[in-house]
């Protein structure tokens, strides 16, 4: 059993970790860290020789890299004698002018070095005597430089989401900043920047050309192994070590599945390892909520044709060829190709070249794909957890899947498992090709029991997300032909108390369709407005039955 340390929230918010924790957990991208640090360390007389941008998709480790560098400077006696690292908050909403930027630097200096206490107060006094803001900005900057030189210190500013701050500046302020970045010898910047659309807009600022860019690419296999070993530290069973030594292909498969993005690797590892209470899915939901504004903005920026292609690829999860996309979207291949060209250029989509002219396309940022499935996958559709299914199929063999299923069943029986997580696991495990029929039956029964006991929160005003979960469970039960059980549950005292027929009317009528021989009049009571929805459910259940039957057949031969 692996101990969970809330790693998801820590990785997403690295400054939740203490300095020692972050340094101790910093096991990948070490070469890059050393390269940048060496460059910084050897620059006293020419400081700042270079400003830096650490560029990479979300979850690649930019913030962690910035913090790691700042901590190393603090710890280095040669550097900390003359260089002060100042780390900005991830969000700096109050900085909307250049002078406020310098004031913020002053605040950080006061917090970090007692020699600078009172600096902000002096700046405020200047403002009282100042006629114009432009002059005030120059004055506070000069004061800042004067104080730095007086103490023989220089500063290195670590600024994440760099563009967010400077996008608010007026053109003249941008020019002023450019002037400072070009010619001042007391201030250096190490900035973090995400690529793709949000950073593209930032490129209108001319001072970006002063920066050396280091791109965080996806982890390679060795780095993925190192990361997983670190996550598995403290596990006396040495599970990861065993996997690496005996099933090295799995690590590579995980790496490819996640694009080598640290956060996604950690996420999948933690979700899989969590047998206790399913809390990691809560963390996932929190994470998804947090990225929703950004990812929604990303989608909004695309043309409608591109949005459709992105949706098709996202819901598919696995890569698709142009022909497959064209078939799904009912659009001509050449139109699809043209749009894909743009999407590849803007790094929304990745092109995986094959030996034929039919290349494969998939969503570039895998966590964006997970977000899309979880937030836009159809109700009750197993697509929502397709990413988890793929992970399970890559990471596990039949033995592992059965073992995982058993652990989930145990947790369900104890009634301690988060119902959201339970629904996701039930769907994903049932969908994998490795779960034999017997185990699938046992899992379904356990979920029924879990559901029956009402361990999940249920009320007449069921929140949308929970409605979706229960709906998916009901569909699984329909596909498994638990008709009598479902009828009894809908019509039970509890079912009436919770208005099940009202909340899940289309499913009730789908059930009545299947039971029309026993209850011929019930199905006829269905209103015409429900017909299409009910027919869709029936088709969906039929499909699920076929897929489960195929899985069962395959499982027999495993």
């Amino acid at each position, binding site marked *: 059993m692996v101990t969970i340390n809330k790693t998801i929230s820590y990785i997403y918010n690295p400054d939740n970790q203490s300095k020692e924790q972050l340094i101790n957990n910093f096991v990948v991208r070490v070469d890059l860290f050393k390269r940048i640090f060496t460059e910084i360390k050897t620059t006293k007389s020419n400081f*700042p*020789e270079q400003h830096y941008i650490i560029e990479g998709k979300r979850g690649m480790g930019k913030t962690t890299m910035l913090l790691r560098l700042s901590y190393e400077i603090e710890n280095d006696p040669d550097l900390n004698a003359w260089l002060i690292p100042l780390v900005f908050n991830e969000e700096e909403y109050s900085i909307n002018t250049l002078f406020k930027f310098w004031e913020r630097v002053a605040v950080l200096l006061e917090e970090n070095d007692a020699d600078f206490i009172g600096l902000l107060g002096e700046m405020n006094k200047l403002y009282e005597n100042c006629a114009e803001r432009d002059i005030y900005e120059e004055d506070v900057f000069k004061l800042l430089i004067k104080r730095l030189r007086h103490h023989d210190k220089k500063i290195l500013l670590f600024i994440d989401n760099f563009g967010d701050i400077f996008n608010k500046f007026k053109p*003249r302020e941008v020019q002023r900043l450019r002037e400072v970045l*070009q010619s001042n010898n007391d201030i250096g910047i190490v900035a973090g920047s995400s690529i793709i659309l949000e950073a593209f807009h930032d490129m209108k600022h001319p001072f*970006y050309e002063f920066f050396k860019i280091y*791109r965080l690419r996806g982890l390679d296999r060795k780095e993925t192994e190192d990361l997983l070993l670190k996550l598995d530290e403290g596990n006396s069973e040495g599970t990861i070590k065993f996997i690496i030594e005996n099933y090295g292909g799995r690590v590579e498969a995980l790496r490819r599945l996640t694009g080598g993005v640290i956060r996604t690797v950690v996420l999948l590892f933690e979700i899989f390892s969590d047998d206790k209470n399913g809390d990691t899915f809560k963390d996932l939901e929190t994470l998804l909520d947090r990225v929703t504004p950004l990812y929604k903005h990303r989608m909004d920026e695309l043309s409608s044709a591109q949005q459709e292609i992105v949706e098709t690829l996202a819901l598919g999860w696995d890569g698709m060829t142009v022909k497959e996309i064209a078939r799904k979207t009912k659009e001509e291949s050449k139109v699809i190709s043209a749009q894909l060209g743009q999407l590849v*250029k803007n790094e929304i989509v990745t092109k995986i070249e094959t030996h034929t002219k039919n290349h494969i396309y998939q969503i570039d940022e895998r966590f964006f794909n997970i977000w899309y499935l979880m937030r836009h996958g159809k109700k009750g559709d197993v697509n929502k957890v397709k990413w988890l299914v793929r992970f399970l199929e890559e990471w596990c063999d039949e033995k592992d899947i059965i073992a995982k299923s058993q652990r989930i069943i145990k947790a369900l029986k104890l009634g301690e498992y988060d119902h959201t997580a339970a629904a996701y696991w039930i769907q994903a495990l049932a969908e994998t090709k490795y779960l034999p029929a017997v185990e699938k039956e046992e899992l379904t029964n356990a979920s029924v029991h879990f559901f029956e006991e009402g361990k999940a929160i249920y009320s007449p005003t069921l929140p949308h997300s929970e409605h979706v979960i229960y709906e998916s469970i009901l569909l699984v039960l329909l596909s498994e032909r638990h008709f009598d059980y479902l009828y009894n549950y809908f019509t039970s005292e509890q079912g009436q108390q919770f208005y099940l027929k009202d909340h899940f009317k289309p499913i009730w009528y789908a059930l009545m369709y299947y039971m029309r021989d026993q209850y011929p009049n019930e199905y006829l009571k269905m209103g015409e407005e429900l017909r299409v929805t009910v027919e869709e459910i029936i088709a969906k259940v039929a499909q699920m039955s076929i897929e489960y039957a195929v899985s069962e057949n395959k499982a027999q031969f495993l």
Partner: protein
Amino acid sequence: MKNIVGKPVSGENFFPRNTVIEKIYRKLAGGDNLFMAAPRRVGKTSIMYWLRDNPKKGYVFIYVNTEAVNSIEDFFKKLFDELLESDALKGLIKASEKSKSVFEMVTKHLKNIKIYGVEVAFNEEEKTGKYSHEFKRLMERLDTEGVHIVLMIDEFPSTIENIKKLKGDAEAIHFLQLNRELRQISSSSIQFIYTGSIGLPIVVSRIGVPSAINDLNTVEVPPLSNEEGKMLASALLNSNEIPFADNTIPYLLEKVKWLMPFFIQLAVQELIDEYDNTKREIDIAAIDRAFNKICNRRNNIFLESYHTRLQDAFTNGDYQLALSFLEKIAAENSIPVANLFQNTKDENTKKQYRSILRTLEFDGYIFNSNENYSFNSPILQQWWKLYMR
């Protein structure tokens, strides 16, 4: 020597440009004020830093960046500020009573002048002067005790553009005339060097006063020679401990073609990344991969700046035309001048086209050879072809 990409360099990171440096000193010795003519990214600011940090005996170079300045008074105030900050002037004032009294005379009329390390007495009531006027007086009367003081004004064309945008053409013309006057009345031991990332002659001719700078002697800063390019590339790779095969440097330079230090540095940076990923000696294949990455990356900040800079250099209509010219030239590799003019009939349009093409030439995007335009840099051309459509 470190591979400093993008930012002007100084100290041991500066690749010696002895020919250009000597040319500058020769012209200064002849009493000239200079204009450093070169496209973007050639290293003009780095050359200025070198002069500032390693002056020959008898010379003091003071660097001033006026990019953010947008008024005449602010410009001269900035010059005052930089002068006052300079150790050379502080030394002069301390050593010479005559210099000190000149300084007192001009600064007593000025508000908001802050002086570090120089004690002068001010009379608050007398502070009604203008910086432009007082600076001229200072330049006229300052005795430099035989030392040549050279004011190097970077981003001067941007200042003209800023003033023009804010206050109109008349003010910009007045600004240019003031500077010309300044150069004429300054003591013979005070000289000026101007440069900028936008072409000064183009900016000035757009306002219609090319005569405002006809007293300036031009110093051209060419690309590196092949030998210099080889030395720079080798020095950068060696200092980063990147092993490379013998035939790779000539191949690298062939691909860069236009041997501006920046493009060599950009290529070397990709090779450093390549080595960090593969831990293998750099060979021809690695160079091909590196170039592929540079040219085929949409979010290439450095190359993107060539695009965004066009918006500084041109107004809306001209900007669109400039984009369309570059698109055509990128697509065709080389395009006859006549083809670009084939749809024009009237003289005004032709004049407009010629002005745009001259700016693009001056700023280093394209060059004209035998009445055909081509991109200077194959890297920039390839990127433009892919992303600027």
